[in-house]
């Protein structure tokens, strides 16, 4: 197992190198000039040129890339063009809201989607099954921002139960922290629940017809133990895989959800940085997201050995 983990971790190095080259090139190829943005609308060409020189953007691309990579290797993402702060400081500052939103969404999703999927499969063809599948189609079809606005209108404006926007750090009070996460988490969870409930249903359906399940029932086991011990566990590998893949969906959703709910997380930082052509920040955030994604995939792969003893690395 350990050599496998070591190999997988080593394999992340070329992945990161490719990500670094692609991100750096894409940003430089994209239209827009951070110096012109920083200088403001009334600035002259001379002002813009002076800022460009100060930021080092007048140097050859290869030289800029070499300087950036050299710093990243030493763990220094550089300074943001706009915020006058170290990018690592900016990222650390924004991690908590995004992490909190992601974890809440994930917990909510798993708590809802897996039971719903199992229930739909177990009651295949019934109104429950049709209701769950109907919800899934709806969840896929409605854009995240529409769900967000509808929830805000109902629960924040009309009923005034929850705040419209904002984030409260957990250190400033758990009540306010949770209160501000409810609507964003539900918004983000809708698509995720739809995805995982469908996969769970399909996966459980396949196992429900397996011989070992029939045998378990024949020996007199109740439906709940059959579903939990014999069905769900054997259906878990594809479900966990989809949850892992879903993290990518989650990262995309976080960007929109954080904007709709005014949450100062990594998603908003990414959008702001892209719009402002803040190269060091965009590069660093995408690298961080890539590392997270690679590590989640590794964890998913490792979880297979726990869920299915036949799998060995």
């Amino acid at each position, binding site marked *: 197992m350990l050599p496998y983990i070591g190999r997988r971790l080593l394999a992340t190095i070329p992945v990161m190198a490719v990500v670094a080259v692609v991100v750096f090139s894409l940003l430089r190829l994209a239209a827009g000039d951070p110096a012109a943005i920083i200088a403001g609308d009334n600035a002259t060409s001379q002002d813009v040129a002076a800022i460009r020189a100060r930021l080092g953007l007048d140097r050859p691309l290869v030289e800029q890339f070499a300087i950036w990579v050299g710093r990243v290797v030493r763990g220094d993402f550089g300074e943001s063009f706009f915020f006058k702060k170290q990018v690592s400081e900016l990222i650390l500052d924004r991690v908590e809201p995004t992490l909190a939103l992601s974890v809440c969404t994930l917990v909510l999703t798993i708590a809802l989607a897996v039971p719903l999927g199992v229930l739909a499969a177990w009651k295949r063809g019934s109104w429950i099954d049709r209701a769950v599948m109907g919800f899934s189609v709806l969840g896929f079809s409605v854009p995240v921002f529409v769900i967000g606005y509808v929830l805000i209108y109902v629960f924040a404006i009309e009923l005034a139960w929850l705040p419209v926007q904002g984030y409260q750090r957990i250190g400033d009070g758990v009540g306010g922290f949770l209160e501000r996460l409810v609507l964003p988490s539900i918004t983000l969870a809708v698509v995720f629940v739809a995805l995982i409930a469908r996969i769970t249903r399909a996966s459980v359906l396949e196992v429900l017809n397996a011989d070992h399940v029939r045998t378990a029932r024949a020996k007199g086991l109740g439906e709940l133990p059959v579903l939990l011990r014999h069905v769900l566990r054997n259906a878990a590998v594809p479900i966990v895989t989809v949850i892992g893949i879903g993290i990518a969906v989650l990262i995309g959703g976080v960007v929109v959800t954080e904007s*709709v*709910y005014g949450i100062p997380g990594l998603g908003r930082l990414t959008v702001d940085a892209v719009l402002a052509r803040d190269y060091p920040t965009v590069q660093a955030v995408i690298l961080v997201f890539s590392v997270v994604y690679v590590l989640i995939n590794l964890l998913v792969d490792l979880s297979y050995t726990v869920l299915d003893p036949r799998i060995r690395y």
Partner: protein
Amino acid sequence: MTLRRLIAGLTALAALALVGPATAETTLRVVMHSDLKIVDPIWTTAYIVRNHGYMIYDTLFAMDAKGEIRPQMVDKYEVSKDQLTYTITLRDGLSWHDGKPVTTEDCVASIKRWSAKDSMGQKLMGFVKDIQIVNAKTFKIVLNEPTGLVLGALGKPSSNVPFMMPKRVAETDPNTQISDFTGSGPFVFKKDEWKPGDKAVYARFDKYRPRPEPPSALAGGKVVKVDRVEWKWIPDHQTAMNALIAGEVDYLEAPPHDLLPIAKADPNVKLVDVNPLGNQFTFRFNTLHKPFDNAKVRQAVFYAFNQEDFLKAVVGDPAYYKVCKAFFPCGSPMSSPKGLEGLLESNFEKSRALLKEASYDGTPIVLMHSTDLAVLTNLGPVAKSLLEKGGFKVDMVSMDWQTLVARRAKKEPPAAGGWHAFLTSWVAADILNPVMMGFMNASCDKAMFGWPCDKEIESLRDQFARETNPARQKAIAEAVQVRETQYPTHIPLGQWYLPSPTRKSVDGVIQAPVPVFWNVTKK
């Protein structure tokens, strides 16, 4: 029993009355038009940074509601008979946020840093022979020749504003951002609470000594009536409006016009007309390349356009726009219709005739169209339609504003990544006279993007700068305007206004070209 309860209740009330109400901290929560990322108002011209500057810095002079320049940090000033020496004395009791007194050394260093960056400051310094410090409270500006620019430049309301900073800060290279945010303005910037992308926080500066006069636009007494002002950054306009309706914020600086009906319909929200002079839509030419290198072709655009179509397409509600056939904003001292008679009336026949006269060869006009700023998005298609009706071929290229900002700096031909024209909007306070109006700068390479090159306009602008008599200044401004119709550098496309929605509990918002937060109360 009932009597005992009554007595107990009265006793409790009396006790409460003796104790008095709890004095809770008053925080005004505002959503500004942009996030505060940069905090040096001399380094950048961005409006959000200018607004930040007005929170924490003070100015020597300031513009009042009538457009006149009044002393602000200045107690008194004298102009010598030959109009070559301005002797300026600071008010008593001015201090920096760190408690140190404001001195003339600080002010002179601040003027020098500002004038190195600001175009009007540069113009002013062209007239300045020397700035002499007399003592800690008095300094002199000695000129080479008389100019009417001194007060106008030092009391300039918009970017770059000559904000006063401590000498140690003002000595920072103008092309390097400052990192010490000590000011002497009515608010103190809470650097420790500043979270770019989330909020910027300002606390009342208790030692600030306001002028005794009532506030008037950016001049007069800056009396702060709340404890804190929080600029909360909510990028999504709809969410910001929802937050206002739900009472989570108190004030929206600039929502899109489309959302104003929602604010109007809410019983707890009111619309406040904060900037009576408003803003001006503008069509900017690139004079470097064919066909706009020919003034006659640019004149044709003047005939093809009309202002109403642009204003209707963007603003819609006539309550928030005004047709204003003048380069300087209607309602401002230099405004005049002179020279624009018969123009901006969509006379397509005249436009086509001028194009024929100019031998326009059908070169497509590369029109940069910004798509992500609500207030600019609809201008492009209207311009395209009117230009085509006026005989032009148009290639409208859509892009986000930041891409446009980068592309407009390129002097290359349009086919090689350059451009012919774009549309933007100016805050009226930035374009009050020929020297302030950046797009009127026709000094060729030194001019703003578009690079117009006209000796006559430049000569008139210099005359304006030298003139000290307001009536003669206006005559020169009219002459510049007439010249602009012959050698168009840009075209004014009408004035528009945007009220700021606030909670009804908010009062005392000052009408000014810049959103300011002194005098504002919150119940």
